């Protein structure tokens, strides 16, 4: 190999591992998902082209509508919480006080722990005789069956998601807060603005683009929720699949020996499109605000 060809080839040698993995395990599966979505493929049979039949079936599948409703509900409830709460926590640990490092690390702990572990702990806390209920009993309230009621399970899973993401988004906000000029706060304080007012007039505008980023990230993540609900409500998503989310439906219908790969792929495609749409919507909302 002459020096010249070596030079021309070397960037590609550097890129090879990365490109190969991404092509083989992201782009190729994506294309084959699109292709499978229009076939009646099963786990062990390749399937034939059926056009839009999978999508038509979806429209008449009550499980699909339940799952879609749950996934969207998840976004509506979880996203505002993940945009605001981590910001407040970040403000708490922003100042370079002594010992604040410990708190930062502690608040990050739920992010580090596996969702399975976290869910097991929560199941245990929310149990009829668990920590939360024994606390409720102390104040004289009757036991609440958190995991026995379809609506409550979903709510608990949402709380779990917000709780687990708190530390992660806190870090993103910390990085943004570090760049807010201190003078702005001082000037506002001189003008007689209290902490709440300073938060609204100085902090929020300064980190607004970060809030949009967090909104976009968390809305896509919330829409794709799987583990939390799977673990709290059980593999079938509670009685009659009432708590099922879209990704759970994909997992349930697409795997196993008789898995309906075609139908699951069609569902996957719907997930992809809605996730993309959510991201575009959030980013669009940001641009609009900027131009106004």
């Amino acid at each position, binding site marked *: 190999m002459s020096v010249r060809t070596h030079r*021309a080839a*070397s*960037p*590609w040698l*550097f*890129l090879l*591992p*990365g*490109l190969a*993995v*991404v092509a*083989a*395990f*992201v*782009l190729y*599966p994506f294309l*084959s*998902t699109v292709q*499978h979505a229009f076939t009646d493929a099963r786990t062990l049979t390749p399937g034939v082209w059926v056009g839009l039949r999978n999508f038509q079936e979806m429209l008449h599948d009550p499980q699909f509508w339940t799952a879609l409703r749950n996934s969207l509900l998840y976004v509506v409830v979880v996203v505002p919480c993940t945009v605001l709460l981590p910001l407040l926590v970040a403000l*708490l640990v922003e100042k370079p006080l002594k010992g604040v*490092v410990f*708190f930062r*690390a*502690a*608040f990050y*702990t739920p*992010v*580090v*722990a*596996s*969702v*399975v*572990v976290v869910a*097991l*702990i929560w199941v*245990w*806390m929310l149990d009829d005789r668990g*920590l939360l209920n*024994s606390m409720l*009993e102390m104040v004289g309230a009757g036991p609440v069956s958190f995991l026995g009621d379809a609506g409550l399970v979903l709510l608990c899973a949402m709380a779990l998601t917000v*709780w687990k993401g708190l*530390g992660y988004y806190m*870090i993103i906000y*910390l990085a*943004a807060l*570090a760049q807010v000029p201190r003078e702005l706060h001082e000037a506002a304080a001189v003008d007689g603005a209290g902490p709440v007012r300073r938060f609204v007039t100085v902090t929020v505008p300064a980190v607004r683009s970060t809030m949009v980023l967090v909104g976009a990230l968390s809305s896509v993540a919330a829409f*794709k929720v*799987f*583990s939390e609900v799977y*673990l709290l409500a059980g593999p079938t998503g509670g009685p009659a699949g009432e708590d099922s989310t879209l990704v759970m439906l*994909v*997992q349930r219908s697409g*795997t196993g020996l008789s898995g309906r*790969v075609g139908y699951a792929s069609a569902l*996957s*495609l719907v*997930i*992809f499109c809605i*996730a993309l749409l959510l*991201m575009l919507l959030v980013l669009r909302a940001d641009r609009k605000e900027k131009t106004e």
Partner: protein
Amino acid sequence: MLVVLAISIGPFLWQLSTSLKGPAENIYPSPPSFVPHDPTLANYAEVARIIPVWDYALNSLKVAAANVLTNCVGASLAGYALARLRFRGRTAAGLVFVAALLVPLESIIIAQFTTMRDLGLNNTLVAVVLPGSVGALNVLLMRNAFRALPYEVEEAAVVDGANVWQRFRRIALPSVKGTLAVVAIFAFMGAWDDFLWPLIVLSDPDHFTLTVGLNFLHGTFADKPRVVAAGTVIAVAPLIVMFACLQRYFFRGVGEGAVKG
């Protein structure tokens, strides 16, 4: 601040305390008590008797270590090429990684599963590692880190006759250690904590990773909360210890990346 602290690590402490409580002790006291009266390690022995928890932990460790290695190597190589080398198709190559970032993994998981089956890798640990072995996000993180380096140093090396590989190894790579550490930590955590993909691709209990194994434990032995608690502590303790040791580096690295980004 203390309230947030209680909320964020309280559940973990409670789980630890439950796992240490002896069989005679009421684990549903009212008011709840955190300190076990009769501390015992028997529950840990019990969990190891019911499921091969150490084998599962070893599987998880293998997967996580492999993931760290492949991500650090793959992402820094690709990131370096994208940031510092000029060649035809660079923009296109960069776009491939951005595009990959847009595809939610959850929406291609069935196709990944069939791809693995076609490769004959289903139900192996290799299959657990491969899809995430070079994360697109990590490539872009490394690209940003390399981009922030001044060009002058490398130019001097070119004059001295250093080739691409030497410049990468000796000059560029040592300067982005912070970002590399973040990539390594994220890769480790991602692999250790992942649940959906191993759940789908693994069917043989011998190959279970810790998360899948624990879910099994939970499903079958839900009536033995002390044992389940011990299992969760085994799963979470290594990560918390690792994170506690590396957190200074981690927070600094994240800050760096964000400022440069």
